[in-house]
């Protein structure tokens, strides 16, 4: 079959897509068994003091509209299947940000009989934000770093 992937027209569309994605990513928040600490800090990032929305990032509900999944918690066994399902429902390309020590390694809950010990045990993770909980600034920094890494310049280098 004739693959016209490098057609100039398609390249232009790809450019626009990437531009839109970097400038206005939509995020979904999933709590896979966290203590709430990280979740209230994620909520705090969208409220007036920190205002994540000024970067064009919008927290919304459906995984099918999301580009970025912001995950907290050490992944309990019950939430594991849901986490995978939600990840699969997200359209490609998709990115995962693991927020908090327990999303990274299990943190304080490492070794509990019911936890997997980190988001990356279950789905691939693109960016880790450490802290218990991380400050809202740290969460914003993490997401912005992720967006930076998508820019064509940084991908070449």
């Amino acid at each position: 079959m004739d693959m016209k992937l490098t057609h100039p027209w398609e390249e232009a569309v790809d450019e626009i897509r990437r531009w839109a994605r970097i400038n206005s990513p939509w995020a979904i928040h999933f709590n896979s068994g966290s203590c709430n600490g990280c979740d209230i800090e994620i909520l705090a990032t969208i409220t007036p003091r920190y205002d994540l929305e000024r970067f064009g990032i919008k927290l919304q509900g459906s995984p099918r509209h999301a580009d970025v999944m912001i995950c907290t918690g050490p992944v309990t066994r019950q939430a594991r299947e849901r986490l995978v399902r939600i990840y699969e429902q997200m359209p490609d390309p998709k990115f995962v940000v693991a927020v908090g020590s327990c999303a990274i390694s299990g943190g304080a809950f490492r070794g509990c009989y019911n936890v997997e010990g980190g988001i990356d045990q279950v789905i691939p993770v693109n960016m880790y934000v450490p802290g218990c909980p991380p400050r809202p600034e740290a969460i914003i920094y993490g997401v912005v770093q992720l967006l930076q890494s998508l820019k064509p310049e940084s991908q070449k280098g």
Partner: protein
Amino acid sequence: MIQNPKPQKFIVPIGPQHPALKEPGHFEFTVDGEIVTSVAIRLGYVHRGIEKAAEERNYVQDLYLLERVCGICSHIHATAYALGVEKLAGITVPPRAQAIRELVAELERVHSHLLWLGVAAHEAGFDTLFMYSWRDRETVMDILERLSGNRVNYSANVLGGVKFNVDAAQADAIRRGMDFLEERTHHYYNIVTAEETFLRRTRGVGTMSADQAEALGTLGPTARASGVQRDLRIDSPYAAYTEFPVQIVTASAGDLEARFVVHVNELFESYRVIRVILDNFPPGEIEVRMPRRIPEGETISRVEAPRGELFYFIKSNGTDQPERIKIRTPSLSNWASVSATAPGHKLADMPMILVGIDPCFSCSDRSVSILPHDRQSKLWTWEDLRQYGIEYYR
């Protein structure tokens, strides 16, 4: 021609991931047209096995683990645990440490109530109030950070006292913060009692009488909004609550509006008591030495968390690890009131009724098994539990 179909009942499932829920929980609403006829609640997505893990760590490690049962009321969990262990060890904590515990507990109540006010307003579609109350909440977060170095999970407690002292500059910052918040809270009081559109979402919704509240075992502001006179800070004072007493705040209507009023009035009460503590700080040490090994024995420890009575049972076997820790959180007790008050309301009111009890999923997610009267006890083997878990989440 299309026949008018007969009215049918069907089930609306919500969760575990849902825009209106910040934490995973699963609900099934049976609706008849628009009216909800019954609610089934399924929790457990956040069950991590903390009680078991606590048995495998030593007393000091447990302090940090138990603080993370819930990130919103972290200090009060650690306080309940520390008070229990200190009782077992027979140690008297210096009065200044107890006062700091109460101070941080009240600051935490302020942050938790403001948080709830915002989230509840958000569920009502009133995002302006959500944004305002969260903006103002940053004031108390700043104070907590200035005191402890962390915004959430402040680890104020150590076994035998507290970790940080409060100096004059910090006290001034707290006073200034309280002044600002008090002024703002008057504004919120006006909104929740006089804003017509908001009242339509809250007045007469989810009403619970005092008898019902007692029978369903509700606790905290949810019960006090129905006129139940129960507040552990007054009924059985702990930490420094004998020296710095608080007044009970109740309402009688029992609906969502009353819960808003109780929460807001408790904010005023917290501001008042925080100022009293700052003006009359007892001098002295903030920590005493604790033994590594805790003498054999068992104890209970009860405190008033922002959401109601928090109960800890601690059993020690003389080593440096507890033999058993049992936690009963207020959110768990309050869930029953949702399925009792929801039927008869519109589906659109459900988010309000759900957040009306100020639920905290990470606190509630433990397994409870209720045995019939005639059965004495039941021992679950690991295999039984596993099988049960697989069936439950199928």
